[in-house]
């Protein structure tokens, strides 16, 4: 059984090739992650230390304040305000009805902190009052948020337990 194997030079070359490829992938992943990873933050967290997060890639989530939505046809910029809502995890845990309440309260709470959002592009179909906006972009020196990506969730679109309008069948 103990045959002395001559190291196969082709095999060594193959393994070096594999190693180099994997090393290249790892380097690529690390460098791209450093330049384009996004940090989850709430509106409160962003406003607590704006100078620290200015220019960094952020992902923030908030409730859309309906009467602030404005689309400028000339510049092609969309602006609106979002109000602070608790962090994403609490929202994921919330039941549908609770989510609607959280968003509703956030928009109607005068004390809730707000950020003005700029986005270059047409208003998405689901952008409306009390939707949850998830934005990717950067905080600008003037305290506004320039969004590169805009994702919207409307709690009402999801399954609702019981209907409001019904025809009651008597026994």
């Amino acid at each position, binding site marked *: 059984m103990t045959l002395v194997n001559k190291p196969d030079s082709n095999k060594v070359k193959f393994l070096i090739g594999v190693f180099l490829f994997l090393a290249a992938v790892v380097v690529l992943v690390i460098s791209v992650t450093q330049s384009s990873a996004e940090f989850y933050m709430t509106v409160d967290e962003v406003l607590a230390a704006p100078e620290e997060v200015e220019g960094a890639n952020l992902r923030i989530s908030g409730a859309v304040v309906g009467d602030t939505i404005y689309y400028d046809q000339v510049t092609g910029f969309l602006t609106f305000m979002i109000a602070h809502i608790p962090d994403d995890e609490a929202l994921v845990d919330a039941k549908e009805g609770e989510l609607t309440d959280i968003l509703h309260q956030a928009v109607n709470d005068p004390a809730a902190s707000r950020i003005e959002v700029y986005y270059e592009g047409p208003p998405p179909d689901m952008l409306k009052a009390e939707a949850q906006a998830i934005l990717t972009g950067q905080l600008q020196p003037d305290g506004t948020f320039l969004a590169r*990506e805009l994702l919207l969730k409307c709690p009402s679109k999801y399954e609702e337990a019981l209907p409001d309008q019904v025809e009651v069948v008597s026994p």
Partner: protein
Amino acid sequence: MIPILGYLALALSFLVAVYGLIAAIWSLLMTSKAWQQSARLALIVVFAMVSLSVLMMLVLLVNHRFDVAYVYQVASNDMPVYLRLSALWGGQSGSLLTWSWFLAGFGALFIIRKKAMPGGLLSWVLLVLLLLVGFFLALNLFMDNPFERFWHFPDGSRVMSVFQPAGAWPLRPTDGRGLNPLLRHPGMILHPPLLYLGFVGYAIPFALAIASLASGRSDQYWLQASRRWSLMAWLFLTLGLVLGMRWAYDVLGWGGYWGWDPVEVAALMPWLSGTALLHMILLQRQQDRYKRWNIILIFLTFGLVIFGAFLTRSGVLSSVHSFARSAIGPVFFVFIALVSIASLALLVYRWQSLHVVGEPAFKLSKEVLILFTNLVLLSILAVCFLGVIYPLVSELLVSTKVTVGPVWYERIIGPLLLVLLLLMGVCPLAGWVHSQWMVLRRWIILCLMLSLLIPLLAIFRQVRSILTLFALWLAAFSVLVAVLPYARSVRNRWKQKAHFFKALLDPLRRNLRLYGGHLVHVGVILISIGIIGIERMQEQTQVTLALGESTTLGGYVFIYEGLESYDSSDGRHITQAVLAVQKDGKPMGALFPARDLYYAWQQTNTRPGLESNIWMDFYAILIDWRPVTKDQATFKIFLNPLVNWLWIGTGVLSLGVFMTVWPRQKGLKVKT
């Protein structure tokens, strides 16, 4: 009556599945063929029962039975029949029912064709399949029942239950909520079920692999028995993914087709490992090596399938594809954990028996290149996996939640896809020995010359990016190399004075599988040409036009010719504009970008206007307009070059897969 019938069929199918499971185990303990056949019959009965249950659900959906909670959620009076039928998979519990149905269907189809297998294999296959079907049925039955109805009590309180509670009255809504407007698209008929078929199709190879391991076999039986199923599952998965792209392209109106949404990535992952598996199956069958590796690949593929199903249903990730968060998440998680642990334990237990003697010769051969292709595919898979779990992991490690977006994926995976394209071009060349190489040299030179035409054409069309030109050249070269063997074969027959059609068809008759495989590669390369076109050559502009005014993009003139608004019969208010397209004064067609307002949802839905030919798609979105005078409107206009090749390539690829699974003709000598 119909909801109860559907429910009873569902309950019965679960009971039969449990019985079949016991029968399969018993047949293994007693090595009894009779019990094995009983379990086999049970799986067929399960399929029949689930089919009945699905049929009842379809009847409820078509007949507007809004007293059934599921129907109320996903159907409404204004939805056309085809949408009400496809609402079967439009919500959580219905989609689970569809899974069970497809799973039982695939299982039944497999065992109807395979009445017996050597040793205890069949019992093990039945055991695995019945366990999987039983799990999905149990989810439907105990956690998310699609047949529950609304009831209310005299005091005004309301409940949902299948059977009428004592003292309760039925509650019958006059209309349902219906599918979200985004889902009201013909894509809804095909995209989800094809993906499900792809996912579920991998259950057969998985069950065979487990059965092979469990009964202590180390031969290629499981590979041979599952070959067609792996290929078909892969095709379904591919079609499901591409149809999803087409849907996004047609309806979401951002001019794109793929957004690196976590759920999209989760569906891509089993495709990547499934692609790796297809190639390694070839190697194992030729070389009788890689036994362990292939078992690992099928475990990985099926594990990723279940993982994807878990992600969409758990609410762990936020995505447009997710269902609402439900209690199913944790149950799914436990199930994945148990299946994975059991499978891996079995593999470890049998590890030694899968020992392989010998190593490949590490020279520039097809085998080494396929191994390298595997490495690239699995690297892409690892990157995808990292991207999906990054938010969860980063939170544990550094306590801030960090996420990655489309840019991250594109920058990392883009170069890796280029490497794959290179491998596809080189691989067919590698099998040849030196003497053949001399003969083939002029053919290859011909391929090189011909393929240069494409980048030259692109330069003529104002493409200036070196990377784009290189990618286009590589794609063109790879296509030519992939069709080269067939072209040579045809030429040989032609030289032998065969009739023209005979010369074309003879090579196919002799070696359909081989050329099918090549055709799949041609399809994939054509798809990559479409992706290069839209990713690297897309042009866009946003413009406000007065009536009759025009704008120019990429040499094409777009003229705003009018706008109309009207109500449709299915509850929409449609606003549609007309944009005429011209080039050098010649009309090229018209675009009808529209925006629909769904009254019931108070939600708008943007429908792009699209005019396409094989070189270019003209794609326009209506953003804004003057409602009364209609004398001015704002558009976003895209030119998407070559994107049509994405869809054409998918057709070519499907044809290739059908060629590889086509039954071999008897009486013909098969060259391998």
